[in-house]
């Protein structure tokens, strides 16, 4: 009686003499075998009563759905079932060889609910039997079966923006969520604890284009608390997930710095501007490595160590211990000037691999007293001017910006301090305006002039303002006059 895949027989729906041998236990075992064979049964809810019939060595699977492919490969059973019944009132069955020991059985009509239920069960059972345990702890908390292998070999990395479609069901087969019902893919950042643990673990194992099933124990889902109103306490969840796409994290939403994290850092605190960091970095351009070093420096002053501004900016979003790859556009790299020292041409795209070994945060403005601020202001102004003269405007902005953040809101100064502070602020605003002009960020340049003019009414600053506005109207017409204040 053993037959190959895909043969169909015509059997009248109510198999004579079999109904008295119905056994509630057996269908599930059949299911289990069905599942073990890799079968998936979705979309069985229909008006056609499902009848299960099995004899020793054979499992008859009603074929009122268009099940074209043999079980064991990927397939999707369409739910269009209503008219698949043979005109003669017969139901087509697929015959599937079974392991021995399964008794003949015939299950009489199932309600729709029961069908969906068993459908959920079959997937769950298949996962329990064959699913790969993908938890780091190997505690079978998340089991996975690949339903359709991915089209590409690439897997998403931590921090990547991930696009998925998914469907979630409870153990009783009840669907609790589906991104397709919302008509848009679900997007999240991988590995950041934004989603339940099972997902952070599961989606990280997927390839682009892959569809998989995940069976998630409560510890990896919503635990004993559940998630009101849909997920009850201690629920095991079943998901079908399709990984549509993923991309590296766009740190400043301008495509300038893309980060892909190889190893996650600890905690949530980041170095701030002015923090002292210890990093290991390797720089690549066009596939060849041009830089590799361990270095300690102050965030915002990486240029002193031939480190492009993009690294400084990215460091402010990294955590202690993080190891990541950074893709820098020229603007965040060595820009138009390139870097002859490393043989890097103008407007080159760079790739860096960076490990943030440790850092010490810079003092926040409120942690410094006036004296300290004024002392530091002199230092950073010098530093800013140096960068400005070298044409490193982004770096200069950081230095001048510090003066503003320290002194702009400083009150209760003595007359002498106040005078010093005013002159620092004046220089800072004007130089910032100059930098922004050079960077072609005219709105910011005007803002700096406005602030400067607002804080100082004693001298007619209209000239500078006018100069900046001129810059605004005619991009590129840079006013060299303001440089006098540097």
């Amino acid at each position, binding site marked *: 009686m053993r037959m190959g895949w895909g043969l169909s027989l015509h059997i009248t729906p109510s198999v004579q003499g079999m109904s008295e041998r119905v056994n509630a236990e057996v269908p599930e075992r059949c299911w289990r075998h069905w599942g073990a064979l890799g079968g998936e049964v979705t979309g069985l809810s229909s008006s056609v009563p499902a009848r299960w019939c099995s004899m020793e060595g054979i499992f008859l699977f009603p074929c009122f759905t268009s099940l074209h492919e043999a079980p064991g490969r990927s397939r999707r059973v369409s739910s269009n079932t209503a008219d698949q019944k043979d005109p003669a009132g017969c139901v087509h069955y697929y015959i599937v060889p079974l392991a021995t020991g399964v008794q003949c059985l015939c299950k009489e009509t199932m309600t729709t609910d029961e069908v969906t239920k068993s459908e959920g069960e079959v997937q769950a059972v298949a996962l329990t039997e064959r699913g790969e345990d993908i938890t780091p702890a190997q505690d079978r908390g998340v089991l996975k079966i690949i339903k359709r292998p991915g089209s590409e070999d690439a897997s998403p990395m931590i921090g990547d923006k991930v696009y998925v479609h998914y469907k*979630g069901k409870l153990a009783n087969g009840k669907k*609790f969520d589906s991104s397709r019902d919302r008509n848009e893919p679900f997007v999240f950042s991988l590995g950041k604890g934004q989603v339940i643990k099972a997902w952070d673990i599961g989606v990280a194992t997927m390839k682009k284009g892959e569809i998989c099933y995940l069976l998630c124990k409560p510890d990896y889902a919503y635990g004993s608390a559940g998630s*009101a*109103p849909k997920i009850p306490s201690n629920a095991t969840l079943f998901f079908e997930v399709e990984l549509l796409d993923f991309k590296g994290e766009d740190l400043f939403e301008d495509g300038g710095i893309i980060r892909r994290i190889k190893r996650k850092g*600890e905690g*949530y605190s980041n170095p701030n501007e002015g923090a002292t960091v210890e990093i290991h970095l390797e720089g690549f351009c066009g596939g060849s490595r041009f830089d590799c070093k361990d270095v300690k420096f102050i965030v915002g002053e990486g240029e002193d160590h031939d480190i492009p501004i993009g690294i400084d900016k990215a460091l402010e979003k990294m955590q202690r211990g993080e190891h990541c790859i950074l893709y820098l556009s020229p603007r965040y790299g060595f820009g138009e000037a390139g870097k002859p020292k490393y043989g890097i041409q103008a407007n080159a795209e760079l790739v860096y691999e960076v490990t943030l070994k440790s850092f010490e945060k810079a003092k926040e403005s409120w942690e410094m007293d006036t004296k300290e601020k004024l002392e530091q202001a002199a230092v950073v102004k010098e530093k800013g001017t140096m960068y400005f003269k070298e044409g490193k405007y982004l770096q200069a902005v950081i230095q001048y910006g510090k003066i503003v953040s320290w002194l702009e809101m400083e009150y209760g100064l003595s007359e002498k301090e106040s005078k010093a502070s005013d002159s620092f602020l004046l220089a800072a605003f004007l130089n910032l305006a100059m930098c922004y002009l050079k960077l072609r960020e005219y709105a910011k340049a005007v803002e700096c002039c406005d602030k400067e003019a607002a804080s100082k009414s004693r001298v007619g600053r209209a000239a500078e303002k006018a100069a900046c506005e001129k810059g605004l109207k005619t991009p590129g017409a840079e006013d060299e006059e303001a440089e006098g204040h540097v």
Partner: protein
Amino acid sequence: MPEERSQTTMAVDELQAIIQRCQILEEADFKGEDFNLFLVAGQKCLEDGYAAQLLEVIQNEKNKVIIKNMGWNLISPLVRCIFMYKQEDDKREHCLRILDQLAQICNPKELFLGLLEQIEQTSGDQVCQTVMLLLQPLQTVLLKLQNKKAYSVGLSLAMIMNQLTSLPVPYTKQQIQEDKLGLCQCCNAVVDFAKPFVNEVVKNMEKSSEYNDMELKEELLKFCMKSLKYPLLAAQLEQLEGIEEHPFRHFATEIIDILWNIRELMPLVVLHHKSKSPCWENQEFADIERKNSADSLACLSYLMFVQHFGIECFPVVFSPAYLLLCNMTHIEVLLKRTEESALSKGLDLFESSLLRMEDNSLLHDYLEFRDFINVPQDLVKIMTLCPMEHLRKKSLSILQLFIDKFDTQGKYTLFRCLLKTSNHAGVEGYIIKNIKDQIHLSLTEYDNMWFTGHHLISLLDLVLSLPEGAETDLLQNSDRIMASLNLLRYLVIKDCESDNQTGVWTTLTKIEQNFLKPLRVGLNMSKAHYEAEIKNKKENRKEAHSSNTVCSVTVSGEKMPAMTTGMQLQVLHSALFTFDLIESVLARVEELIEVKIKAVMDDNS
């Protein structure tokens, strides 16, 4: 009577006269003067109660062109008249039909402005009535508008909401049922008013994804945001027994439906942390915008996560910790407010976010987010300063819930922070009790490094000390001192010197120096002082009376009566009683320490 009749016929006659004159004119030839005459005559008809006749004139097909051009003029007197008549008056019915006719016939552009002007001018009790009266014609007109439709819809909604904002939101069940000013009814009418426009946006979105009618969508979004802030944030949104269809719950459902339909719900709830990009030229506007939307978004989160409105569309894969993190911003916004409506929403949102979490599952790393440190401090402020008792109680229970959710390092950090910032002996006592519970857990159930050994010692330094040494106000700090003594008593009983798991024996000299000794001195001083005071009071009762009017105390606006000497004595005695209590526990602790040390010395010898 005849005189009156002649007068009324005069009004209708005048109207007929101007109508007849205009009937022969082309549309373009109507003059300003004609408009005026028409208005005056029409108004007179209305005022004299000849609405039926006016209606006849308006319905006359021959007059269509005239009405189309001049009809909008009548809106103002018409509205006035409608409010004059009683509900069941026939004349009112006529007026309503005139309004209806005008909406059908008149030039939409002029009529739109006329209607808007009426809404703008209304105030006080009449706001809701006027709005409800004019919504239907306004909708009819807007649907007919060809140009600037989105702008006009937005303008109407903004105008209506602005007018409503001045009204108090009914809060109690009784107020809601009574709906004195008609606000509940009016809000729901406004939603119905907006529905055709929502449908239009939905239809356009279905047609093509690139269809470029973002404008109407933006306007509807603004309306929803405004509604979330007012009236929803100020409203009571719990289900109320005996009210089948809670008007504000209904309103909330409708608003969330609109957001869902125009596909803005998810971006608002999920992506709010990314600053959306309405680029304001002026920083100030951007700030205002952000502040306004902060309230609205907080209310939206409350509706979704506490009341479960629209939750069926919300993805069920986010981790509870992430949801808490997202909601923390909203919780902070709400807890900074002082009105009951906002505070209780904030507390509910906080509670429900915490209840989604397992105990001990929140990583201490989260305390690096500013909100996670700020919000518990806001809770402390509520539990110590809020005048509403149920909110005080609730915030205390939520603080406990918050503590429970953190891992041990998180609890440890949180305790340190709260001890340093709360400035309230009761709260400090409460935290110290929590510390004791954690030590108990680590001694009995599972070992952990944060509530034993050197970490604990540094925490004990903070706990077992008197802020101002022997001069500390013991009465003021009695809650804290009692909790500290209880903790110390627990430690010396539970932890043998030979084990010294907690490390308390190592630091005992320091504790004696910083805590027990100054406490003993302080107790003696305080007791002596209060005893002397009692003696004084008893001796010079009369003198005390006169010298007691140095200052007066006001509690919630009411001046407290001056204390009688009897009351003062009572207070002094109760203070003494507190000192006795402290002293007895202190004595017990000292005794325990002595016994244990002696036992060890005996063992050694």
